[in-house]
């Protein structure tokens, strides 16, 4: 289990762009957290700090209370797996199976473990039938699922996904939701960046809203998508999900998901 703590984290890119500014954030083991915010608000930069791909220029990062400034990325990778946004900038192997086995292999697992992990990860994303295919013969949606499997196979206690639903067809989105639910049920920490407010409201118990390298809002969907928070969302060019807007219009309180909306309607009778 790994708890992540960020204390006053700031990050400036070498070209002088300030991407993060005084970020304080604690993510407990087993939480499911969505990070939202307009393009350029620092979401991707933030998650690259979780496994040391980027090191903060201010503040510090702790795993289970221990500062990881001196721990190599290669070691942190065993705790935090990150799936990046663009599958075509990650996949490098000529075979689906090899791509998925890469993580457990570099982590030094045994041959039988690697095989089992690869098989399970492929099954979890529904790619078992494609194990011997060339990744570039798969469609975009399945390539994206492949990158997710490649990280699942590592069995990290924390799984981070950068825009897992962007560019996915409806089946792909449903598959991603199923994978996330499985991880949460397993007690693993799931952190996802997304622009899809409906997906976010339905699949995560906590939402962090970013803007200009800072955290603007942080709370459960019912709080973040409640009407009083809308001006803050608007400042980061976000719209509350449709169900939340309908619920507010009908004065039903905060109804971030369709389920919540239906329940509120039923309760009113």
């Amino acid at each position, binding site marked *: 289990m790994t708890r992540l703590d960020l204390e006053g984290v700031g990050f400036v890119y070498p070209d002088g762009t300030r991407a993060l500014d005084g970020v304080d954030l604690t993510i407990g083991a087993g939480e499911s957290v969505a990070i939202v915010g307009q393009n350029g608000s620092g979401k991707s930069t933030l998650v690259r700090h979780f496994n040391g791909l980027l090191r903060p220029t201010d503040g510090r990062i702790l795993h289970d209370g221990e500062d990881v400034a001196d721990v190599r990325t290669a070691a942190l990778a065993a705790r935090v797996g990150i799936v990046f946004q663009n599958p075509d900038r990650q996949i*490098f*192997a000529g075979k689906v199976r090899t791509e998925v086995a890469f993580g457990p292999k570099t*982590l030094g697992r045994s041959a039988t473990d690697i095989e089992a992990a690869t098989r399970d990860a492929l099954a979890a994303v529904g790619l078992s039938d494609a194990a011997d295919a060339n990744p570039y013969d798969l469609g975009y949606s399945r390539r994206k699922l492949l990158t997710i499997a490649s990280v699942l196979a590592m069995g990290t206690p924390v799984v981070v996904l950068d825009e897992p639903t962007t560019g996915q067809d409806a089946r792909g989105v449903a598959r991603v939701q199923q994978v996330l639910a499985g991880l949460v049920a397993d007690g693993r920490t799931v952190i996802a960046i997304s622009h899809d407010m409906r997906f976010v409201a339905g699949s995560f118990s906590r939402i962090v809203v970013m803007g200009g390298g800072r955290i603007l809002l942080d709370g459960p969907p019912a709080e973040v998508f409640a009407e009083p928070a809308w001006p803050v969302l608007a400042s980061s060019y976000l719209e509350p999900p449709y169900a939340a807007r309908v619920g507010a219009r009908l004065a039903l309180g905060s109804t971030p998901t369709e389920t919540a909306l239906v329940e509120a309607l039923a309760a009113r009778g």
Partner: protein
Amino acid sequence: MPVTPSPYHRLNPLTKAVIATVGSIGAFVLGGYVGPIAIMVIMLLLAWRAGVLARLARVSLLLTLPIAISVVLVSVFTRAGTTVLFQIGPFDATAEGVDFALQTLVRLFAISLSIGLFIMTTEPRAFVFDLERRGVPPRAAFIAVATIEAVPTLVERATMISESQRARGLDTEGSFLTRVRGLLPIVGPVIIGSLTDVEERSLALESRAFSRPGRRHLLWAMPDEGWERVLRWVLFVLLVGAAVARLTGRI
């Protein structure tokens, strides 16, 4: 491309291409120190005039460094020579090795600065139009341009793949050997990826009707002043002169 391109940006694309070619082949032909360093200084001055100095220096360092490091290590320690400067394990670092490594370095930098300056200051489409106008077959012009356009993507792709591998536990921090080992798995996909890129880009250029026969409008004026033509010939003659002088052992 900046909003208000500098006079250097506005040169005819062929002139900038000739400057890049003469700079890089010149650095190679001249060898030694004076020639390549002079070329480096000229390119840096031009880049400064064009307002891309910092960017060019950074990109050229990034592109050259991995090759430079391996060249230095290999040549410093494996070049036979009589003057041993120091030893590491069983390897002798010889003065001859160091000299060779430094000469290779200045050449590498002169070449990457020359090519980088061209890429940073030239709109690929302008280059295609200009080549076509000069009678270069459109297909050849595409491939040239698609290749140039692919360079920045190639760098980005390499960075991202290596990032994703580090996120999956590949150790690229630490010793030089670890770093090199970390680079190996990305060489293949990056090259294949950029070949696909070049193909896609030439298809994209084509679908934007670049290959349609017949005359097209030039979307903007393509200057080619008389002095630019003269400059190109002068540079070309200088290059040939340098090559001849080099071959006949005069320099």
